[in-house]
């Protein structure tokens, strides 16, 4: 399979060791085929969009519908994740002190209403995210905390001035969420994008029937010559189980978030040669999060024992057969350039392969802590694969005599309890759209340092290591610091990773030109996607 990735950069290969794709159709080298124009891409989205505005949300339900209508400043190169290329920016320069970024815009970028995109639109869009006007919430405000000012010396030039160095700023500029809106429209109504679609993306908006479908049509004035290939797309709302049937029944052509292995098997069985599948690890993992303020979980021995009791390697193999859970990993995505090797992992408590020893150690720790009869309530969500994970860990804990009450709650209650500390132990999850350690490790630092650190722990040593790696420019040294952080965090076990997710995308082989990645948020603007003719 590797030869199909010829020409992929070293960085990409490093980033994507788990990324594979297969499919009978693709066996006849895809690269050789010339894209064909025309056709409507029908695909499924599992949830309804709460808004049309990418700035104000974090859900794929919006991304998978709105993305084809918008452009961003930069973007990830199709087929070459995580390499970044320009989207509406033709080129850009980075000042040596990394405090100034200057973007040169393409001159021919048009909005769907025919107006030309200028640097003012860039400024207005970013200003809206950095300091949202009344009535607008910006989900990514914290990501822009280091941007000091945006200047527009001329209509095709935008200059970003930074307060401080931000190692992850390029990912921010390429973020699919940071869509560019028309300054004129924002001027009239700051909340215009929440209920209207008007961008520079490859498709113009046709209609949205709530609960049913969303339709886009090719935008002929799209700035990339000859694109998009598709005449349009139709995103249909349906439940995951309905998707499987719809894909199998060829009622739709694709779904971009991911399926369970079992669902994949069902679809490929039904579609036969017309199925193509993509596999990758996912920037999404489940964690066991203790409430470090509640006894006995203020005792490191108890936390560690509870983590030790879990057979992650066994769980990985078995759960991967029935759920989206898969790889064993640390705090950064396994397979990313920052991740620990399996050998490194095995040294962490709870990652050793000798489960008998692990369990004996766990029992010993509990005895030491006076918690032989430990029992607690595990708060969990009531959807898959959370429930599967819950059932699995409860069984694991039962094996060393821990009794657990499984409390499954609705999402809102889950968030509320998580935020207020209304839990003893919970199955938590964490996701980011980039692998940068600063973005990822923030989950594990002290509660007063980050909203997202919900284990209610305070560990200044971890905070120190976190700050050190964030400012470290040398990659090897930074990686070392990340390892140190992980090791300390595993030993303190304020909250511990359980398993990472695997992303399995299955679609009809007619769909070509789409790019797989470890996040389901990117490559959804679809300019390069085309449809092969139906096989008779």
């Amino acid at each position, binding site marked *: 399979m590797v030869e199909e990735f010829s020409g992929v950069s070293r960085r990409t290969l490093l980033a994507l060791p788990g990324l594979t794709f297969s499919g009978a159709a693709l066996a006849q080298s895809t690269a050789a085929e010339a894209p064909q124009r025309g056709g409507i891409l029908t695909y499924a989205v599992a949830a309804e969009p709460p808004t049309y505005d990418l700035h104000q949300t974090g859900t794929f339900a919006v991304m998978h519908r709105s993305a084809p209508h918008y452009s961003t400043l930069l973007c990830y190169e199709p087929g070459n994740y995580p390499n970044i290329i320009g989207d509406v920016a033709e080129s850009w320069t980075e000042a040596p002190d990394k405090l100034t970024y200057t973007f040169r815009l393409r001159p021919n970028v048009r909005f769907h209403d025919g107006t030309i995109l200028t640097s003012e639109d860039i400024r207005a869009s970013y200003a809206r995210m950095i300091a949202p006007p009344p009535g607008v919430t910006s989900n990514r405000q914290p990501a822009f905390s280091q941007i000091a000012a945006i200047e527009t010396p001329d209509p095709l030039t935008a200059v970003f001035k930074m307060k401080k160095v931000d190692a992850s700023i390029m990912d921010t500029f390429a973020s699919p969420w940071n869509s560019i809106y028309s300054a004129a429209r924002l001027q009239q109504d700051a909340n215009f994008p929440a209920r209207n679609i008007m961008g520079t993306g490859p498709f113009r908006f046709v209609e949205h029937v709530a609960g049913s479908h969303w339709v886009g049509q090719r935008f002929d004035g799209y700035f990339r010559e000859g694109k998009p290939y598709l005449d349009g797309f139709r995103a249909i709302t349906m439940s995951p189980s309905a998707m499987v049937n719809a894909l199998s029944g060829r009622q739709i052509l694709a779904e971009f978030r991911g399926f369970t292995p079992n669902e994949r098997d069902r679809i490929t069985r039904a579609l036969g040669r017309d199925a193509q599948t993509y596999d990758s690890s996912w920037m999404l993992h489940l964690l066991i999060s203790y409430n470090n303020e509640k006894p006995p979980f203020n005792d490191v021995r108890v936390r560690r024992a509870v983590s030790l009791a879990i057979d992650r390697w066994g769980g990985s193999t078995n759960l991967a*057969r029935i759920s989206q859970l898969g790889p064993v990993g640390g705090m950064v995505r396994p397979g990313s350039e920052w991740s620990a090797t399996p050998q490194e992992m095995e040294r962490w408590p709870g990652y050793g392969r000798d489960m008998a020893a692990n369990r004996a150690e766990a029992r010993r720790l509990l005895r030491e802590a006076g918690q032989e009869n430990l029992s607690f309530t595990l708060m969990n969500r009531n959807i*898959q694969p959370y429930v599967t994970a819950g*059932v699995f860990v409860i069984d694991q804990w039962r094996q060393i005599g821990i009794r657990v009450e499984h409390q499954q709650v609705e999402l809102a209650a889950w968030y509320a309890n998580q935020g207020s500390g209304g839990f003893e132990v919970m199955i938590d999850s964490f996701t980011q759209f980039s692998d940068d350690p600063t973005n990822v490790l923030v989950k594990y630092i002290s509660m007063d340092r980050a909203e997202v650190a919900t284990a209610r722990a305070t560990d200044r040593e971890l905070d120190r290591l976190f700050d050190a790696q964030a400012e470290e420019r040398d990659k090897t040294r930074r990686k070392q610091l990340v390892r140190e952080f992980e090791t300390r965090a595993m030993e303190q076990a304020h909250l511990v990773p359980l398993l990472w997710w695997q992303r399995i995308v299955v679609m009809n082989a007619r769909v070509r030109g789409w790019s797989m990645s470890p996040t389901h948020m990117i490559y959804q603007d679809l300019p390069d996607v085309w449809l092969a003719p139906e096989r008779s």
Partner: protein
Amino acid sequence: MSATTLARPRQPNPVLGFIRAQPLGAAGLLVILIMATAAILAEKIAPYDPEAIDFIAMLTAPSMEHPFGTDAFGRDILTRIIYGARTALTIGFLSSFIGCTAGGLLGIASAYFGGRADMIIQRFVDIVLSFPIVVLALVVVAVLGKAAVLGVDMNLVAAIAIPIVPRSCRVVRAAALSVRAMPYIDAARAGGYSSLHIILRHMAPNVLAPYLILLTAYIAQAILLEASLSFLGLGVSEPKPAWGLMLAGDSSNFYQEAPWMILFPGLAISLAVFAFNLFGDSLRDWLDPKFRA
């Protein structure tokens, strides 16, 4: 004036009488008894541990070792159905009992006192009746939080019992209204007894028949509701064995390849509810002179 006597009427065995008069009901009762026995003796008769994960046996089709097959965690479905009977019957009986008793007492009070009290109780009944059961259940589960008594989710019991209250209140009230009009109640009032005494001693025993019929019918409904709530993720939590739960979650993923995963638990629910309905129906026919042949 000589004493008048009447030959004591032959008192046939009520159980035998019921079986003869209501063979379908007796069949229902038999199923209920079998299920109850299985639930009580689950530890003794179930072939496996209901919660133990066995990945080697994952998704096994029905076989000698696993007569009803296994689920995605390799747990034996027969075992989980047997233990599930315990959950279903306990929650079904408890919630029906609590709901019918509370509703019944309200209904009797409503009928006995009449007037303003009746008015207020009936408005309350109207309000709760016009509430969708799912919302009611959701909120009750969420508000009460976890409160397990002897291993039974009392919040779930409450969630199921609450919608039963107004429904049984209405039925019992109607029955109690006709009892209220009976001269023996007037005789008791003329005797100067307290309202509580009259309600408990004279009214309650005489609405026992509709109460029993309701109780049986609502055990069936409660089992069904428990299954539905568990199916919607509002009821019993994994890994506890519960029939509705066995149809939810993983099952919706796997049932096309492993139909036994939904077939047997669904049959168990249907059979239990069926048996209670059959029994309740026959009990009504048997107790209600209107339906007596």
